[in-house]
């Protein structure tokens, strides 16, 4: 798997590259935003590791340009900036994940793998959460290797949840996204659908967690896997 590391501090870039190579990645290094943009245009990377405080073109600018150009290579931002509101803004602006410096290499590795897996799955039209997976082309859910029969409404809701693993969706968001399909959708109906989905997933290590006031979250229950 090929990564592009965009980092202006040579020491950090050196050690990080060594560690990532040690983890089995192939790593290219770009020292500033402009050369990074050139390399991204010329070559195909599985993931970009982006520092924010870069010379010539800041990381935020590069991020904005890549997203504007329709580049969907997963992008993990690393920064020493500590404003939390800024992190939220970065994720909103299209970063796929975020790590504050300094970070543990193991965690970086886990997140890189997750992002690449998600992006490859998305490219093939396959979304997964633990033993549950969804094939976009076939419009079919599979649970622990077996086809999961679902009603159209259950299918629609579960599809929304699996496309954004780890990210909670509120009832209103679910209604808004299904409104073209279902005209009589209301919060109670969503509750009923989620209740039925829970029954269908009951014995699998994947569950729909309710976070009151926030929304529903599809989660891989690793502890009992």
């Amino acid at each position, binding site marked *: 798997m090929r990564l592009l590391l965009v980092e202006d501090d040579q020491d950090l870039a050196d050690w990080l590259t060594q560690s990532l190579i040690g983890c089995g990645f192939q790593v290219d290094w770009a020292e500033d935003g402009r050369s990074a943009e050139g390399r991204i245009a010329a070559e195909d990377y599985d993931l970009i590791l982006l520092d924010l405080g870069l010379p010539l073109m800041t990381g935020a600018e590069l991020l904005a340009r890549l997203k504007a150009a329709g580049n969907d290579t997963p992008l993990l931002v690393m920064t020493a900036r*500590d*404003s*939390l*509101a*800024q*992190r*939220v803004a970065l994720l909103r602006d299209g970063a796929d994940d975020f790590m*504050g*410096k*300094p970070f*543990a290499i193991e965690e970086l590795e886990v997140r890189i793998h997750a992002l690449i897996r998600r992006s490859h799955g998305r490219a093939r039209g396959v979304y997964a959460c633990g033993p549950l997976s969804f094939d976009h082309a076939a419009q079919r859910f599979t649970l622990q290797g077996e086809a999961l029969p679902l009603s159209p409404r259950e299918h629609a809701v579960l599809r929304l949840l699996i496309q954004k693993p*780890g*990210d*909670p969706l509120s009832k209103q968001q679910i209604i808004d996204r299904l409104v073209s399909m279902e005209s009589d959708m209301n919060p109670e109906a969503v509750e009923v659908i989620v209740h039925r989905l829970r029954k269908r997933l009951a014995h699998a290590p994947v569950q729909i*967690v309710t*976070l*009151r*006031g*926030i929304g529903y*979250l599809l*989660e891989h229950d690793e*502890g009992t896997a």
Partner: protein
Amino acid sequence: MTRAGMSAPGRPLWRTLALWMLPTLLFLMIASLMLSMKTLREVADSAYDRSLRGAIRAIDLRISTESGGLGVELPYPLFESFQATAEGEVLFRVSTDDGLVQIGDALLPAPPPLEVGQVVFYDAVYFDRPIRVGAYMRPLDPPLYGAEGQNLIIEIAETTESREAFLRTVISRSMLRDLAALLAAALLLAVGVHAGLRPLRALRDRLDHRASDDLRQLDPAGLPREVQPLVRSVNRLVDRHRIQGEAQRRYIEDASHQLKTPLAVLRAQIDRGLQLDDPIALHGVLRAMREITDRSSRLTSQLLALALARNSALWSSSAAEEVDVTALLDGVVRLHLATARKRRIVLEVEVAPDVTTVHATEALLFEAVSNLLQNAITASPAEGVVVLSARHAEGQAVIEVRDDGPGLASDLLRRLDQGQRFNLPRTRRSPAASTGLGLAIVQEIMAAMGGRLVLANRPEGGLTASLHLPKKHAGLKAD
């Protein structure tokens, strides 16, 4: 401290005073001048008129009708002396009111209607020269030429050049005097203001010559009473700066202690590692180093957050805005969701329907709520529930974070209740996962926003941390 865009310097004090005083003075002087001109003219007229009256009487006494006609023996000596004093020409006319007889200057203008036995004075024009005329009418007894009820009119006139000249002299003298008084007043004003402001200039020099770190109080002695409130305000400002400066100094001392210690530990670990040949022992040292690095990085970001909060205490009000509470809490939850779910902690949000927005600096409020949530997640047992809520209490917007962890020691809560601030711990008391700075940051942020942090143990176990946002800023939904 100078700030660009500050208003231009105000008008000088002396000019303000002059603008108030001088027009008024000028008006009063012109009015008084006009009044005194009128009085002077009256005085001059009455003085000059008296000699006219004397001349009329003298002529009257010399009128005879014995010859059957009207005869006047002119009082030439009187006329001469009169003419000499008046420095002009003296004219006269003796006539009957029916116009039968006219002696003297027939071209004198006709008199106004006269009363019998009264001397009347009036101004007139004679061959383009202003004249003052005295006219007197009395019955002629016996009447001439058998006419009946005939009256005799005596008119004496003199040219008024000398009278005007006299008036001009008097008035110009009086104008000069007034003008001199006005100039003196302006001068006194300028000198007075200059002298009055001297203590202020001395104060300015004292302030200008101060060393930048000299934050002693100003001595108000010798300053005008009007300036005392200003001096007191300046002193309060200086005090606030001094307190802030001291806090800053303490903070830097504490922070450098906190930051250098882990570096020293790391250095010691590296030195120890270099002495070791055993790879297993070396591995142990590296693991220990990683722990120290983790701790120190948490500490650094919290120290920075604390410094940021303290800094914004100085500038906060400018950045305050209406913050959507639901969106803010949602953002905070999403940031910490992954950490919470690792231990199956459930995060919940409750926003009361009457709370929509709060007036705050969004980044700071986010930081504060985020710190509280992080603490709550750390304190919460696995599979616990952490609730973020927003509601109104006594008109204040309150954002609350509840957990079912062990809560805080009651003596710490009591001290906080008495207003004690969290500070940088010189010795680490908190568990390894915490730097103990989170609550200090929250306190700083609340102080910056004019709100407060209230911590209380819940009766059913766990801690409630509430952010009380300032009352006037609470955004209530309009009913």
